[in-house]
């Protein structure tokens, strides 16, 4: 099951050139672009591992593509995303976030039902990948 998180996730996977154009848009708007990776695909997993520092002073997006490819060498089997942080007052938040790399095999999520008091049922989801310990997911 293909993970649908962030921008462009319903489109075919982005090519390096697509990534460059999108990152350039962020840079031209003055946002700091950074690369992050994780092997925990849960949608509420907000804080992914940082790949290097956010790129505050690179005028050209080729640097972003370069870092994405460096990250792929090391963490090619996990999810990698590019995010753009807007530091201007009032925003101070992520403006863009899109996945640029995903594992070859994405097992998807299962629904977990928990019986509560009375006939209450709590629902949650859990990725099948999360059954393996960290680092052993996605082979």
């Amino acid at each position, binding site marked *: 099951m293909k993970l649908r998180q962030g921008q462009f996730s319903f489109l075919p996977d982005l090519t390096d050139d697509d990534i460059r154009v999108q990152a350039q848009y962020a840079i031209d708007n003055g946002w700091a672009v950074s690369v992050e990776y994780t092997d925990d695909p849960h949608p509420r997993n907000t804080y992914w591992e940082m790949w290097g520092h956010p790129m505050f002073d*690179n005028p050209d997006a*080729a640097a972003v593509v370069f870092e994405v490819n460096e990250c792929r060498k090391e963490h090619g089997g996990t999810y990698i995303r590019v995010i753009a942080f807007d530091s201007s007052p009032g925003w101070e938040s992520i403006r863009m976030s899109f996945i640029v790399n995903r594992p070859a095999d994405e097992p998807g999520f299962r629904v977990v039902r928990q019986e509560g008091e009375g006939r209450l049922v709590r629902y949650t989801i859990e990725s099948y990948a999360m059954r393996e310990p960290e680092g052993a997911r996605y082979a």
Partner: protein
Amino acid sequence: MEEPRPTHVDLAAAFEDSGVREVLEELDRTLIGLAPVKSRIRETAALLLVDQARRRMGLATGAPTLHMSFTGNPGTGKTTVALKMADLLHRLGYVRKGHLVTVTRDDLVGQYIGHTAPKTKEVLKKAMGGALFIDEAYYLYRPENERDYGQEAIEILLQVMENNRDDLVVILAGYADRMDRFFASNPGFRSRIAHHIEFPDYGDAELLTIAERMLDQQNYRLDEAARRAMSEYIPARRGQPHFANARSIRNALDRARLRQANRLFNEARGPIDADTLSTITEADLRSSRVFRGGLDVDRATGQAGASQAAE
């Protein structure tokens, strides 16, 4: 999806449209002398225009190698030309942004194991989309110390120069003889650099014109006697150690401005006009120690030359 290929190209029109003409004209106007450098740049521009035309007609594939080396003595305008070069490549569409990042060994090579690679990569990333100017590039290679981290920086540099050829242009600069030795011991560099441009020294008359132009930019001028003094100063300075062409002239003018300010301060009784404020007189130049035999005189009297360190 591809546009139909044109059957003809109009090189003259391409030349006009690309804005290369403005860069070349600006180069002619703002840079004095350097005739061989200018002709090399014009040749490079022509090559790139033709390459662009060929590519549009489907005759050429892949970007040409644009990495360059600038060799010449200090103060011959290497950095200035590199700036213009970045602009030129930007207008021709070979680099996307056209900015110039100037670095030396310190910016690339780290202090301890594992420090060099991130540092070099950081610099390379900053230069992507533009040109990376490595001043005194031969310092990267220190043959006397085989554990020097410079070698690591060189390897990363070579790798990026090869793999990210479309993303950045690397310009190496330095003295001719030391650059030759550097290339001899790093054949990888030599083969990846297509354009070697040599910067000749300036003639005395050229330096005088440069001096006047520098002053003009700061709204100063030389009076007639000062002009004569300057034209004597230049050959005298050339004969002394640490002569750095235009940079020496700039330093001399900075010191002359200092003396002029001092003179005005001591002499002025009552209001002075703009003309006096902007005129450098003979006295301001003649009191230079260059006319008294140069730096050695100061050494003997124990005043280590601060200006010499600045050169």
